[in-house]
């Protein structure tokens, strides 16, 4: 339920007295950095897929990125599109939401949207972890870093569903 303190934020209007500078948004900055990191990993894996270049990762035993990334599960079902491409899309939207929160720090709707988006990403991560552990029985370290970034993003967005400081509350 929306806390009463956020009544004015749906409009993007700061509830603090006029002229009060917007508080610093380290949380939004962290979310933007996480999105950039995610874009880097997804971009690298996508370039490896299309350029057919060797993957910087172990390829023996339980850790085997190549085995995961060359499996049928590495493609969007029914297409030849690597799943890392939708991953790039996910982090682009995540970055846009983080930047929007820097621009509109009092907009609670943006925080809710970001949490919902990260939750959607986390559901996808749970499916991909299932594929790795049960279907393929190997772990891809690059994919795991991808999954950890999404998990931290989700936790961060949940954290930010509550006001960061008194400046976000009605005086």
């Amino acid at each position: 339920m929306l806390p009463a303190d956020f009544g004015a934020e749906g409009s993007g209007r700061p509830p603090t007295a006029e002229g009060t500078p917007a508080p610093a948004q380290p949380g939004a900055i962290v979310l933007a950095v996480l999105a950039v990191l995610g874009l880097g990993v997804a971009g690298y894996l996508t370039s490896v897929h299309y350029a057919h270049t060797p993957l910087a990762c172990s390829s023996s035993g339980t850790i085997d990125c190549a085995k995961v990334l060359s499996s049928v599960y590495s493609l969007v079902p029914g297409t030849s599109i690597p799943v890392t491409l939708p991953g790039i899309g996910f982090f682009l939207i995540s970055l846009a939401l983080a930047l929007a929160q820097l621009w509109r720090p009092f907009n609670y709707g943006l925080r809710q949207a970001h949490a919902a988006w990260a939750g959607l990403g986390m559901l996808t991560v749970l499916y991909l972890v299932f594929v790795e552990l049960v279907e393929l029985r190997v772990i891809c370290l690059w994919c795991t870093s991808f999954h950890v970034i999404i998990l931290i993003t989700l936790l961060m967005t949940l954290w930010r569903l509550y006001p960061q400081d008194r400046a976000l509350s009605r005086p």
Partner: protein
Amino acid sequence: MSKKSMAARRQMQSDKLAGKPGGGRQQAGSRGRGHRRNDRSGKRPWGLISAVVGVVAVFVVVLLLTESTLNSGLQQDTQVLAAPASLVKSITTIPLKTLEAVKGGSIGNSPLNIPSSYKAAALSQGGLPEIAYVGAEYCPYCALERWSVIIGLSHFGTWSDLHLIRSSVYETVVGASLATFSFAHGANFTSPYVAFVGREFQSNVSTDQGQSYKTLQSLPPAVATAFTSIDSNGGYPFLDYAGRIATVGSEAKSVLPLQGLDWSQVAKDLRNPTSKVAQEVLGGANYVTAATCILTDNKPGKVCDSAMIQKLRQKVESSE
């Protein structure tokens, strides 16, 4: 009534008109609630965050336990059975019109001319050009390639003592337990045009749940040299056509069409040129035939003179 008490009453009436819930004491109470609300708003959602982390942790633990259970429940099928003559006859008598309808099929890795820089040894046996196959019984791509090799070479000679095996149950990434043949266990190919050496370097028997497989056959020295020099990664399957042409890795893009089918179902699908099985297996077989026609100088004519084979042959000859 004193001026002070009248002023207080006016204030209460004013508050009522403004919709405020009560008088001075209630206002004080409202301020109190507001203060507590501000305190609550400052709290962090540790419960929610702990719940998310907990759910993810439990999910991963359950998956690990499930994976362990499923893995220990996988049953290796390491039986080696003599191939029924009816099955061999069925797949070696596929009508020419079916093969011509498939053409190159959905093959993604056709045979290539071996560059002269490799200085590959000219493989031969008894005066005949030799075709060498190196694979492994566990390997799912080899499982599909063998169907193509058997069908492709059947136009030039006769197979005997072929045996049925399944690829490894643990190769779930590419395709598990695929119905196929083995070139070990006494398989033989006789032909007036070409000689054939088929070696299964490893079996489909694993004692460590697919991490490694037992060695099955050694390679003749000339074949070993060709295998290690041309196929520097040592990947299966490997086909060498007399040191002139080679296929490194699987011809087929995917072995999934074979998944879940037994030998008779594969044989049945091979009669339908539009089936995915026919596209992969017969497409590969046609390339095997075309590459072999290069070695035999287009003999026998009834096979090599086919316009479809000639087209594939030109593609192989023009490759680098």
